[in-house]
């Protein structure tokens, strides 16, 4: 038995599998003690399988764990008081945050408004930042040596001010770490662990080997800030599992799309791990079913998350992501969130027309139809008015919806100002939000250099299948897949992860000098870095009991042309540069990637090429994800029919009686023509006219437009 858990802000999802058997469970997340919600989900699963929780854990061979709770620690500012020690003259690097930090993590609309620019409360206040007289240049040469007595004095000052953790981030420390190491030595001498306990001392060069003093400092600060969270809460959970008889490792899902044990996990690597597990699950499924290009869409109450997965490509990584409000340096799988969800509020203004979102009614007060105090018209209200949601069966009947309230809200906010009927207004709200989601997908895909029409779309989350036909039609996408276990999809995705470590370092290496018409001849610097990474990877995996042969290595390079400011990341066709053939292969791979991504018009070979970052991905295949088999249908679709209701369809521009089917009863062999509503306790699929739904042997429901289905 393998157990995969995704702890979200509200729910703890659990997906357990063993040969041929799958069980899923949901429990409320217990923030004060994570193991409580976790064990509740385990008990549920144990109940389903007819065993006890302790027995289940005793038999488990793996526990994989994804959590986004670090986000809460950041938002609630529950981290320890930290001090930042930096180079004199650079004390304001973090407070200023490259000027733009006020807008990092905010929406596009907020980013336009200079008159409301406001930075978040800092994680390290200015008075807890000190500069040391020292300087190293870009080549690693010491220009101003660091004096030990100055370090001692400044450390004392900071401890007197209440520092309970130190981040040391000095200029160019990743080129030459001697000054940062000196600071740590002094701290350890002055305040041995008996005094400071587990207060962290984080050196920036150990956190990131990339240039950029702000992003490196911020990455280090976040790791220090979340240190206690991983240190305490996660080891508590591990200990709890141990006492209940679990003997295997606790593997943590990383936002890189891999996983590792607790001791090899930096706190930042756990941020957004849940959605990343979902994206990675989609990637595994895409590989299994041989889809080249997949876009995942997850529509919740307030946001719409988009992930792009393309076979063999590195374009779905963000290398300088923003975590909460802070820009950091680490490779993270790229998931874009836009403000479109069931709670998105619709309003009409003469100058802007009908707008839907990004403001959301959330779950409180919620859409007008919840009857919990919300009065604004939302997407959920529109779906109710259009007949796509049913007032009595929403969330398996757990929440009654009030259609009258929905109509009133839509009438007031949209129908009357636009001088149209409530039904027409509901249709317009849905049309605008579907197009907003389609636009967001379009932008993500086009920016990565692809055409949306070449993609297969995965749709999950509460609202995804409800709108999938809508945004797919806008984009010209012909095929949508609703995966099995959609409600616990992220937890299920964790089963497909590898063990993964990523090693990276800034390195300016000119491959082709356009002025002197020379190409790189001395490969030693390049190879030395790669060799160092390879032996580090073998050592790290060796500690976990893996042989060198088990470790798969993939070299990635950040490359740029001329004095270009951004870099383009490529998969290197070679691990080491042994000769001119290898160099040519790297250059050709770069030109090909560049052309594919930005178009042939942008390609420019003649202005020089340099490497800026060397990155090694070392992984060990641990994927256990297997697709279960479903029993074929034994009866026709009429047996699934639960009745019919009036739903709006564009073809008649009015409501039509539409069949409603039981989603959970659909089996392989069933073929349901649109228009139809497929309704389960957690999932509602709105199947448009000209679309057909089919269940495959593995529980994947595919929705296909007729032309493609033919």
């Amino acid at each position, binding site marked *: 038995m393998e157990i995969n858990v995704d702890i979200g802000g509200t729910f703890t999802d659990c997906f357990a599998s063993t040969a041929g058997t799958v069980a899923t469970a949901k429990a409320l997340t217990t923030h004060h003690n994570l193991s409580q919600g976790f064990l509740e989900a385990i008990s549920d699963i144990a109940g389903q399988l007819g065993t006890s929780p302790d027995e289940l854990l005793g038999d488990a061979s793996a526990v994989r764990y994804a959590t986004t709770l670090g986000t809460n620690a950041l938002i609630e500012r529950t981290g320890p008081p930290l001090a930042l020690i930096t180079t004199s003259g650079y004390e304001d690097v973090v407070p200023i945050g490259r000027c733009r930090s006020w807008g990092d993590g905010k929406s596009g609309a907020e980013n336009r408004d200079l008159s409301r620019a406001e*930075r978040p409360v800092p994680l390290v206040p200015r008075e807890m930042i000190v500069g040391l007289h020292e300087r190293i240049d870009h080549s690693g040469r010491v220009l101003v040596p660091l004096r030990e007595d100055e370090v001692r004095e400044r450390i004392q000052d900071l401890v007197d001010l209440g520092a309970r953790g130190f981040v040391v981030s000095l200029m160019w420390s990743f080129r030459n770490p001697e000054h940062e190491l000196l600071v740590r030595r002094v701290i350890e001498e002055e305040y041995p662990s008996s005094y400071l306990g587990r207060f962290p001392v984080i050196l920036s060069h150990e956190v990131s080997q990339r240039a950029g003093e702000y992003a490196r400092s911020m990455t280090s600060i976040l790791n220090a800030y979340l240190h206690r969270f991983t240190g305490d809460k996660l080891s508590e959970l591990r200990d709890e599992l141990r006492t209940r008889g679990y003997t295997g490792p606790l593997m943590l899902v990383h936002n890189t799309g891999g996983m590792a044990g607790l001791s090899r996990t930096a706190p930042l690597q756990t941020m957004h791990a849940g959605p990343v597990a979902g994206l990675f699950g989609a990637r595994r499924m895409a590989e299994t079913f041989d889809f080249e290009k997949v876009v995942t869409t997850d529509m919740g109450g307030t946001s719409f998350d988009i992930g792009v997965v393309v076979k063999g490509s590195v374009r779905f990584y963000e290398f300088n992501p923003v975590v909460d409000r802070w820009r950091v340096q680490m490779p993270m799988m790229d998931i874009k969130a836009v403000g479109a969800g069931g709670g998105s509020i619709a309003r009409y203004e003469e100058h802007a027309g009908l707008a839907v979102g990004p403001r959301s009614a959330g779950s409180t007060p919620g859409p007008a139809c919840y009857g919990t105090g919300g009065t604004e018209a939302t997407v959920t209200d529109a779906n109710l008015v259009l007949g796509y949601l049913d007032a009595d069966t929403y969330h398996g009947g757990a929440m009654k919806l009030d259609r009258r309230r929905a109509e009133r809200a839509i009438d007031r906010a949209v129908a009357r100002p636009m001088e149209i009927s409530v039904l027409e207004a509901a249709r317009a709200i849905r049309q605008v939000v579907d197009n907003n989601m389609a636009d967001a997908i379009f932008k993500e895909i086009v920016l990565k250099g692809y055409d949306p029409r070449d993609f297969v779309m995965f749709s999950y989350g509460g609202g995804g299948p409800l709108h999938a036909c809508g945004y797919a039609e806008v984009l010209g996408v012909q095929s949508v897949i609703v995966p099995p276990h959609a409600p616990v999809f992220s937890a299920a995705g964790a089963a497909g992860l590898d063990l993964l470590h990523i090693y990276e370092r800034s390195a300016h290496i000119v491959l082709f000098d356009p002025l002197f018409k020379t190409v790189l001849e001395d490969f030693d610097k390049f190879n030395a870095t790669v060799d160092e990474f390879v032996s580090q990877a073998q050592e790290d995996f060796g500690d976990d009991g893996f042989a060198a042969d088990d470790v798969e290595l993939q070299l990635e390079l950040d490359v740029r042309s001329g004095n270009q400011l951004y870099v383009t990341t490529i998969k290197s066709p070679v691990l080491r540069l042994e000769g001119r053939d290898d160099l040519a292969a790297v250059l050709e791979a770069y030109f090909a990637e560049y052309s594919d991504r930005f178009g042939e018009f942008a390609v420019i070979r003649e202005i020089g090429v340099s490497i800026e970052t060397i990155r090694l991905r070392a992984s060990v295949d641990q994927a256990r994800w297997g697709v279960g088999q479903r029993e074929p249908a034994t009866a026709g679709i009429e047996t699934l029919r639960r009745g019919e209701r009036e739903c709006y369809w564009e073809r008649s521009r009015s409501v039509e009686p539409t069949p409603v089917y039981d989603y959970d009863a659909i089996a392989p062999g069933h073929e349901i023509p649109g228009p139809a509503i497929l309704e389960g306790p957690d999932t509602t699929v709105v199947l448009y006219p000209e679309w057909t739904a089919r269940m495959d042997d593995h529980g994947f429901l595919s929705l296909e437009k007729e032309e493609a289905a033919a």
Partner: protein
Amino acid sequence: MNPATLTDAPTSTPETEAFFADLLQAQPVMYGPDPSIVGDHRLAPRTPSEEDALRRVTNDVDLVIASNRLEVICESAKEMLEQIGAAPGAKWGDLTCGLYTASGDLAVATSTGVVVFAVVASPIVKYIVKNWANEPTVGIRPGDLFYHNDAHYGGVHNADQTLFIPVFHEGRLLAWAGATIHEGENGANEPGGLSPSATSPYEEGLRISPMKVGENYTLRRDIVNLFQNHMRDPLLQLMDMRAKLAAAKRIEDRVLEVATEQGGDLVLATLRHQLERTEREVRRRLSEFPDGTYRGITFGDTTLLEDRMIKASCELVKTGDQLLVNMTGSAPAILDRAINAGLPLSKALVHNDLMNFFWADLPRNNGFVSAVDFVIPEGSIFNATKEVPVGLSMLSTMFLHTATHLAMTKMAFNRPGTTEITAPWYAMVQGLFYGGLNQWNMPVANLMTDINAMGGAAHRDRDGEHAAAPFFAALADYGEMEDRETELPLLGLWRKINKDNHGYGRQRGGASVECAYMVHGVPMFALGCMATGAKFPTIPGLFGGYGGPSTPVSVFRAESPEAVRKVMAERPDLVPDSAQQLHATKPFPGTYETRRPTQSAAFYGEGDLWVLQCGGGGGYGDPLDRDPEAVMQDMRDELLTDWVAQRLYHVVHDDELVVDPDATAAARAAERRDRLERGKPYDEFVAGWRRDEPPEGVPYLGSWSWEEPAPAERVTEVAEA
């Protein structure tokens, strides 16, 4: 000549008249800047195609959806351009991707970064449409590529270059796709494209009037070569021309998809609708402010080459939904200094204030400016003609921007609606520019992005943000010093907020930074700078708040690189981290100077050091009303000297920065009494204060009264050091 022949009935045949008409008008010597285009900020009239399209497409939801899609298309092209461009501007937001109507009005512009493009870019396309469509040697056909940088035809300044592609659908010109980047280097007489020492347009580098540079989506290599031939950085020129082509082409491809799937009429109608709707909404919002006349005045303190007080005068007359912006009384054009500004940019800076600080939610398109009326007298520094240099037009229009903000804020104060009432944001580019070979032997020439560190304005209810953004681009980035040191032969000795570098007040302005660059790793490197405000501060405060301080530059010339290195290696404690410390302790052997921040480029040797100071934002309200604890926190945060805390905030505290509340209250009461004693009745004040002419010894340009325009001037004296 017998005068009678002039008035007698014509003796010529119609054929003869046609001959003369052709001789005199059909073949201009040159298609120069067209005053009827650059002077007209209104939307072009609806074309018959637009009328038709608007008749056919009436569904408001379709228009909203199409306009969102067109915006996403331009946004994604802009983000791509940021990724593949090479000019510093490409990364820091000084670029735009836009979609123009077939007549040339910019209808969809990308929404972050520099917003003034929304106002200045349209005249360029209008020029192309007017002059080249029917010119047999040029013409406008699918796949044609047009290019431009000369600000006399439109645009911000010659450092910006734009590539345009006409978008044809089913044989009809539907729109124009454009991609603009602040490239910097353009072959002017100083590196980086913004030359303070240019005394005529002919010293301002390559001047590309709107022209065709390629066909079938292919740039003509001989033309690109001509451009490169003018530039100090030919690699940059080549790379970014291709980058702009790729971005504009991507816009064209995607717009054509929309047109093919949903009809060209939808695109036409959406663009026009967007423009007209924006204009209507600007007028509606204006109508909500109280009618009246509001004024703002600011001053620059340099012509670029010598000290002068240069007046920017902005009077707003607001009646109903009409706003008249009158710049009468501003300084005259200075015919041989590059600080003049053309009409499009002068109007654009007024709109920058509206777009960034008043109504950030509205689309940034040409409809915005079309809603406002202007009076900008001929001969004004804000109405430059073709023969006047304009390379540093931003500088004069920046203090015009501040004057506008003061007047607009007074207008909005009583009925702000959703407008945030703030003191002036710091509004001047403290621009260090550079040129030479870097430590990797690559040629580089451009402008430092530290200009983005402008201090934010104080608000009515909170302090300003430190070093938050340039006032003209909301989300700009000044980058990482380690990246800069990788690319340039410079060592950043410090980039840090210096004390007292913001406007004081009940709410203080946001502070900004000093940046110190030492030449490092090459024998010599050229550095220069441009800005005003060394002697007379650039921005005032609001409603009793203080303006930011003046911002001179410091220049250190090393006796030798070895001598500097020796001090750094042996006396780490002497290495300074502020200009104040540099001048006070003079730690390195060599010469120390303070200069005005407009300095022509010159070569500096290894170990030489430049310190430039970006300015802080204006304060809001009386400093005596500031919470004493907030003043102490400013001191703990190293924003403030004790001198200011005591003399201006009148806070009494001990060495541990603990406030003595009673002593502070007493000190503040005493200061209020002193003020009353210093005060005079208004008429008495006016009688004592008013002068009929500028004070002797203050070099001054501009009218001395509101009504009287000032004559154009040529500065002929030898420039001061």
